[in-house]
């Protein structure tokens, strides 16, 4: 019944860990050092930048919610059941990761586009997906979903199902077990997965431009804006990237702070 932080890690682990941290942080520093701070403020507060940022935050949040709604059940099914073809399904779920995002966008066009697989169904429903903000959310969800599923499945397997069994013997129905035992126990893993998904959605570019297009205020998210700026004004692009980075740090920090991931 005793747990303690007394055991500790081997010291040498710090060396590769620091190397890894430097490997990620140095490029960010290099990026920051190239920003022309004089014009930074005016640049990032321009209408188009602000609108792109807000759009990015809205769509990424929506995509993360969708990822959680679809991804948690998928991870549960992969971790807690076994059926023929499960291995194949697990690999398929990973594919949006592998697919270059632009090709992912093409695939989405072929599916939800006007002449796509579901095009007619969608037309009948009177929905207009292409070139809309909905399309951005779909593209972001498509590329982010695997993150949540894969990382949550790993956590579920590591957590095991002993407590779920106990809950069942206490008369809890499967839904109750899920809500009151399984999910609270894997919360750190779920939070990690959601953060991954959110981050991936925030940075999404290729699938969005291919599937949703790029129109200010409707589909032009911050990464798209950064791309455009880069054509005419590389400095602005770098500055905007930093904004993206800072926003991401803030949002992630906020989520972590309120949900208490750091157990």
């Amino acid at each position, binding site marked *: *019944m005793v*747990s303690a932080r007394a055991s500790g890690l081997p010291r040498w682990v710090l060396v590769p860990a620091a190397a890894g941290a430097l490997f990620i942080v140095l490029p960010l520093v290099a990026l920051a050092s190239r920003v022309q701070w004089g014009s930074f403020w005016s640049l990032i507060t321009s209408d188009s930048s602000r609108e792109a940022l807000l759009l990015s935050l809205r769509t990424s949040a929506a995509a993360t919610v969708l990822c959680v709604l679809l991804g948690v059940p998928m991870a549960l099914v992969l971790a807690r059941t076994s059926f023929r073809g499960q291995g194949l399904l697990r690999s398929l779920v990973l594919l949006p990761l592998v697919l270059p995002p632009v090709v992912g966008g093409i695939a989405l066009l072929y599916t939800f586009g006007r002449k796509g697989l579901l095009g007619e169904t969608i037309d009948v429903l009177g929905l207009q997906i292409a070139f809309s903000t909905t399309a951005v959310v779909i593209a972001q969800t498509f590329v982010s979903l695997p993150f949540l599923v894969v990382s949550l499945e790993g956590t579920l397997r590591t957590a095991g199902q*002993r*407590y779920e*069994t*106990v*809950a*069942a*013997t*206490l*008369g*809890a*129905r*499967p839904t*109750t*077990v899920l809500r*009151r*035992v399984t999910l*609270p*126990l894997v*919360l750190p893993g779920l939070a990690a997965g959601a953060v991954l998904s959110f981050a991936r959605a925030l940075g999404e570019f290729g699938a969005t431009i291919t599937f949703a297009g790029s129109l200010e205020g409707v589909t032009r998210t911050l990464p798209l804006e950064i791309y455009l700026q880069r054509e005419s004004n590389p400095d602005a692009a770098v500055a905007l990237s930093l904004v993206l980075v800072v926003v991401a740090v803030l949002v992630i920090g906020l989520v972590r702070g309120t949900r208490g991931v750091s157990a």
Partner: protein
Amino acid sequence: MTLRLTATVAERDVDVSLDVEDGRTVALLGPNGSGKSTVLSVVAGILRPDAGRATLAGTTLFDVAAGTWVPPHERGTGLLAQDPLLFPHLDALDNVAFGPRSAGARRGAARETARTWLGRVDAAELAGRRPSELSGGQAQRVAIARALAADPRLLLLDEPMAALDITVVPAMRQVLRTVLRGRSAVIVTHDVLDALLLADHVVVMEAGRVVEQGPTKDVLARPRSTFGAGIAGLNLARGTTDGGGVRTAGGLLVAGIHDDETVPDGVAAVAVFSPGAVGVHRERPGGSPRNVFAATVRELEPRGSQVRIRTDEVAADVTAPVVAELDLAPGTEVFLAVKASEVAIYRA
């Protein structure tokens, strides 16, 4: 809530058949690994047997042949497993309230129930603690409260007294007596007192099979299995009838008094005698005792005013002065003598 169970779990080499009459408590005894927890798991529905069926109060819990399987939460059984496994993300109170809430109680009512149960197991002051902040015995008490609070139709308790300190065991036994009154229950235990004080019936398992069962008093007074005798604190020799005694597989003849004088020779039988009836000598005794065995002292266990001398096969109870006089210690070679009139022989 009568339970009728037959089940086979091939992987663990367990094959049992067991009944619990309505309102009765059955004590399940047996050595480590004999399949006690397996039986409870099968009844609770967290382990699927390879064959068999079970009914509780007439409704089927499972029937392998018919492909019926009622999931654990619909069985009305409640299991206190061997490992407390309190939910780490809930405090003690919410752990205990889990059962009532799952049964549909509102949060406030469930917490009220939980508080009552925590009080009954003398753990009221632990209500706000997380499981990681509980000692082993405290966790066990909370786990007991959690199992009882779920108020199942059939209660399955796997070593409920484990990890409890001896000063609270009598009180806990009292609580269980009250709870078990009029309720069907199976209780796994290693303590003969639990069997005597809580159970009407005893089932003894060895190596995955039921080797003996019957009313508690009968089994403990006239055990037919080695483990039954061991837990009753009696000596038991198993063999076949041979004249006025039992001949063991090792060739030894234990003379005694037949239960039923008409039994022919060569029938499987056991000879049972109490450690108090065994005399201990440094020299081979002459005179009346018909049974004399050479043995080496393995252990001396003080028991109140007496000391239990354990040898490899037979135990003897003698008084402390005798121990001093004979200078008994582990390793001492002794002769053990039992009068035939103190040995009861009956069919196994």
